[in-house]
């Protein structure tokens, strides 16, 4: 129910633009399979239950990393026929849409989301001082999931691994002590590597500040080079042979089987452990830690929605935005997706145990570096350039120098 928002059955709401019409509310998203599909199904059925008279049209647009979704949206926008709402990463990603996004500050204010939403998330939802996105849930990016048996067999104490270089030492041990690969990594696409590079970047001394400088275009080349070298050492020596052909899901299942010691991933990886037939138990078979050196950080990833200006369904649009901010929506969606709500006022016990822990971290740490690979930190073009920097220089033979300079160039692009 929507009790805590005190907002009835979608009648006109303060904005004075009347009652919802018959045009269906069109919402585009990219959750076509797995956890995401479950989660969005739940979300939409909750919405439809609540507003049974509403015509809605929820459309999944598949493809990795929202690429297809973005291009469909881009073309619809160019055609002046945008969907009412679509899934989008907030933050820098929003800049590309410029004035085409609807200002939903009224929704934020009327519902008090300005106070109840995580501050960082709220800031990332603003563009030119106006709220233009509604965050839904968040994944934590800086996790290292590991196989308990492998670590035990190798005699590695997880607590002792507190920096990237300590991690490499641990890898060494695992390599000599067990048959498993120390780490599994997926390189069939570029983003996991991009992500890993910046885990190491953050995990090093002074990582957070260097990172925030970097995404503003003032990168520290030395720091970056060092992070790249660390990554190179990991990728060159301690990962699975078939890295370049597999996706992270395949890598993850290798870790679950005990063929690899650990995997660096966003906490969506948890979705696989949670599945009924996964055959692994939390803490018995798998466990996790913050990526070494980033214990005091929560590398932020946000799933949310943005809204187009000038659509035929302004009323429904608002109701949808409002709905996304409700605790129920965030909790139910988050639980299925393996992500935590961005509302700070939810009762975390409604979350699954693992998420509860994440949520607790979320409220206790104060450093929220936004992710590059998932659009929060860099606008699309620099982000693509960053992907290219990795893709071109850091997928096989590792060219630290070229990768570093390309990455710096990419981050600097947003200035011009």
């Amino acid at each position, binding site marked *: 129910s929507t009790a805590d928002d005190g907002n009835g059955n979608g009648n006109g709401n303060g904005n004075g633009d009347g009652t919802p019409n018959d045009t269906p509310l069109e919402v585009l998203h990219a959750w076509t399979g797995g956890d995401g599909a479950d989660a969005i199904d739940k979300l939409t059925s909750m919405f439809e239950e609540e507003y049974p008279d509403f015509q809605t049209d929820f459309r999944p647009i598949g493809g990795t990393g929202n690429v297809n979704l973005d291009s469909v949206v881009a073309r619809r926008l160019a055609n002046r026929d945008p969907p009412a709402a679509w899934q989008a990463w907030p933050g820098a990603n929003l800049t590309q849409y410029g004035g085409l996004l609807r200002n939903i500050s009224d929704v934020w204010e009327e519902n008090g989301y300005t106070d109840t939403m995580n501050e960082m998330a709220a800031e990332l939802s603003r563009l030119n001082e106006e709220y233009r996105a509604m965050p839904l849930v968040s994944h934590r990016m800086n996790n290292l999931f590991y196989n308990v048996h492998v670590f035990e067999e190798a005699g590695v104490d997880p607590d002792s691994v507190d920096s990237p270089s300590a991690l490499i030492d641990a890898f060494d041990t695992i390599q000599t002590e067990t048959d498993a690969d120390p780490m599994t990594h997926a390189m069939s*696409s570029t983003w996991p590597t991009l992500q890993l590079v910046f885990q190491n970047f953050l995990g090093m001394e002074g990582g957070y500040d260097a990172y925030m400088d970097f995404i503003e275009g003032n990168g520290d080349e030395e720091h970056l080079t060092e992070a790249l070298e660390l990554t190179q050492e990991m990728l060159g020596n301690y990962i699975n042979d*078939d890295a370049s052909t597999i996706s992270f899901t395949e890598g993850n299942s290798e870790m679950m089987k005990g063929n690899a010691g650990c995997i660096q991933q966003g906490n969506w990886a948890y979705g696989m452990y949670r599945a009924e037939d996964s055959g692994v138990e939390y803490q018995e078979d798998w466990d996790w830690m913050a990526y070494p050196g980033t214990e005091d950080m929560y590398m932020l990833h946000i799933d949310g929605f943005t809204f187009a200006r000038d659509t035929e369904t302004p009323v429904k649009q608002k109701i949808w935005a409002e709905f996304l901010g409700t605790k129920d929506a965030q909790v139910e969606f988050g639980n299925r997706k393996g992500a935590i709500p961005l509302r700070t006022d939810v009762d975390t016990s409604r979350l699954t145990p693992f998420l509860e822990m994440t949520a607790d971290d979320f409220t206790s740490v104060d450093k929220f570096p936004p992710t590059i690979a998932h659009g929060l930190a860099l606008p699309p073009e620099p982000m693509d350039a960053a992907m290219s920097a990795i893709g071109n220089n850091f997928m*096989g033979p590792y060219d630290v120098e070229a990768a570093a300079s390309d990455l710096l160039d990419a981050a600097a692009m947003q200035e011009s």
Partner: protein
Amino acid sequence: MESQQDAVAGAGTDERVAEDRYARLRRFWKSDFVRSAPYWGIPLLLMGAAVYGGIIWNVLISLTDYEGFLQRPDYGSLDLDMYSRALSDSAVHLTARNTFVLLVAFTSISLVLGLFLSILLDRDIRQKSKVQTIYLLPMALSFVVTAQFWLWMYNYNNGLVNTVIGLFGLGPYNWIGNPKLVLGSIIFALIWQFSGYTMVVFLAGLQSISDDQFEAARVDGASIFKTYWRVIIPQLKSASVSAAVVLMIFALKIFTFLYAMFGTYRPPKGTDVLATLMVREAFMLSNWAYAASIATILLGMSLLVIAPYLYYQYREGAL
């Protein structure tokens, strides 16, 4: 005959001119040109608008700064900025190089293999047409389908390629992961798909060479190898040219294969070609004008191949 001529001479000249003009007009109106116009005119309009309209529009767009979705292309100020950007873009250089390597390696190896297969089959073989059918089968499949098959073939742990070379104690290799191998692997898969086609073309060419040629060479004392090398293969020139052109056209359509195999606009390092770069710039980054300029460069590359070929065909009266 005389009376005829009298009759003609008797008519007034003015009248005759007018009559003549009328007759000619009438004849023109009834001429095959006018009568056949709807037959080729309608398809020409549709095709012309699509192909030539498309090309011209594309070039126009490439001369604007059109990008994103906030603005419409401004046809008022045209310049060559996009081209100078493309010419200095290392991604363009890299993809152009890959495109070129792909074209040359794929085309030449397919030609050689197709030639070999056609010579193999150009003899009295049982079930020849069935064999031919099997060799040609991959050609009937979509790039999207064959990409799935090869993705599995190249699978690191369970793929057939690694299984087979494993029998010889080699590998396993990361066929589509290793940037050094991936282009070769893609080319290999394409060769698998299209060498049957080259074979068919060469087979048709071989069968159009009369037996006499072979017999004459034998009576002239040439060995079998020499007969092929000096007499038969040189006569397959036009078959090779047309096969090569078609292969290159297929190679230019490689985007579909890469997209279907890797599921992304960004194929792995080493396989990025102009076609994927163009689609990526257009549909992922909405750099419409830039993408259009890359498309024009791609068109230029294929023109380099096609124009001489068409001219040659035209000269030979083969069109």
